[in-house]
């Protein structure tokens, strides 16, 4: 037998890697996301959420039943997000119910609605992590993006309240045409307070397919240049480029954990493989999570990349975030690709040291990208 150790306290990374490797082939839904609402008090220009007032959000009781079922199925990491989840008057009740189920909870919020009362409660029952999106280092840029006067001050006050209580906070931003010149300033400010900061420039269309967020999307050149201007990202990409891996030969369309070990539940009770994928939809008001999960895993696992799938055999896979979700949101077709993502991967490869991006996978070469940019 294995000897009993005095409650071994594993480092988080080792623990996470260990348990993820054990659930990998067992279709255990260890990573889950629940969107409590798609409503938001901000009106960010790049946001993909689309609140539909004609749809009925899950009730507290329905959410509790779902939380019971996903805990039973093996979910450990749970992301609570929105919209803005704090807009729900029963947010604390839902949070506490989830907390008592033993999930490791990450909370996404814009911090503008946090109150001392909410945070006092979270201090007693801390989340695993709170992640706040900040959209600019200055009021002018922040509010140009959020479209709400006074939201910058509310966000800053919220962040201060969270910090005062020493809750586990991370900051992040979506880098876009309106704020990319302030990203380094946001990072400096955040890291100066000892808070981890990250940014991402890959904007996708709204969940309805509307491409409004692209009005403020960075070009592939600017997105890659921004990564290159950040030492941490630069080092990370260079490291990735030192160890390229070959594309999978199993022909599966889904190469991530979506519908295998991870899932997404929208505010109306629909289970899906991820937040971007609005096909493969299962109504949890009509089915138990377990029934829906088994059916979804089965449907996702048999999806094969078609013969003409542009990513098939592409040697840039290791540096690209292409997936059926991106194809679906950009083109309404899970078998299509995001051309923008493809261009970014190609440029990343060239800039960060993975050599020529000319590959079998139908990716455009640098000349084509530059030509597109000039058009």
């Amino acid at each position, binding site marked *: *037998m*294995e*000897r*009993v*150790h*005095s*409650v*071994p*306290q*594993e480092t*988080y990374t080792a*623990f996470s890697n*260990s*348990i993820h490797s*054990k*659930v990998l082939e*067992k279709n*255990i839904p*260890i990573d889950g996301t629940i969107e409590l609402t798609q409503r938001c008090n901000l009106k960010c220009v790049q946001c993909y959420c689309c609140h539909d007032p004609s749809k009925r959000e899950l009730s507290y009781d329905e959410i509790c039943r779902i939380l019971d079922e996903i*805990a039973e199925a*093996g979910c*450990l990491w749970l992301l609570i997000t929105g919209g803005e989840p704090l807009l729900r008057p029963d947010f604390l009740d839902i949070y506490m119910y989830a*907390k*008592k*189920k*033993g*999930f*490791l909870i990450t909370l996404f919020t814009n911090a503008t609605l946090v109150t001392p009362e909410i945070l006092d409660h979270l*201090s*007693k*029952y*801390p989340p695993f992590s709170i992640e706040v999106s900040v959209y600019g280092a200055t009021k002018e840029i922040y509010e140009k993006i959020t479209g709400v006067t006074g939201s910058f001050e509310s966000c800053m006050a919220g962040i201060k309240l969270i910090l005062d209580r020493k809750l586990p906070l991370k900051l992040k931003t979506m880098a876009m045409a309106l704020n990319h010149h302030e990203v380094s300033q946001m990072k400096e400010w955040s890291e100066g307070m000892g808070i981890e900061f990250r940014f991402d420039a890959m904007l996708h269309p709204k969940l309805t397919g509307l491409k409004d967020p692209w009005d403020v999307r960075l070009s592939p050149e600017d997105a890659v240049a921004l990564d290159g201007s950040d030492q941490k990202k630069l080092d990370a990409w260079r490291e990735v480029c030192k160890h390229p891996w070959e594309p999978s030969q199993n022909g599966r369309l889904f190469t991530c954990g979506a519908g295998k070990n991870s899932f997404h539940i929208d505010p109306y009770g629909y289970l899906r493989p991820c937040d971007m994928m609005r096909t493969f939809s299962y109504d949890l008001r009509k089915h138990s999570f377990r029934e829906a999960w088994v059916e979804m895993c089965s449907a996702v696992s048999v999806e094969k990349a078609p013969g003409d799938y542009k990513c098939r055999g592409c040697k840039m896979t290791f540096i690209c975030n292409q997936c059926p979700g991106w194809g679906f949101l950009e083109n309404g077709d899970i078998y299509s690709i995001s051309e923008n993502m493809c261009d970014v991967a190609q440029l990343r490869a060239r800039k960060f040291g993975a050599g020529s991006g000319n590959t079998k996978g139908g990716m455009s070469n640098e000349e084509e990208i530059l030509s597109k940019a000039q058009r």
Partner: protein
Amino acid sequence: MTKVYSKSPDVVFRKIADEFVLVPIRKNAADLESIYALNEVGGRIWELIDGHRTTVEIHKTIADEFDVTPDEAEEDLQNFVKSLAETGSIKES
């Protein structure tokens, strides 16, 4: 070895893919920065601690169910219970 222990309501036990995990949920319960991973025997001991069974009874069950000598089982049990008590995961009834 005749003590009886109860579990703290502020620690949640999860069994996922044959992994046993203790998740403290309240700030003053144990070390909130930690997640505790237990091995199979630890998981079984946790299941057996119920506020009624004595450590003698738990010891007997462990010695019966696992391939271990009574001395090893006793040492393991004592160490494990001590650690759980130190982290606030259990308390003597």
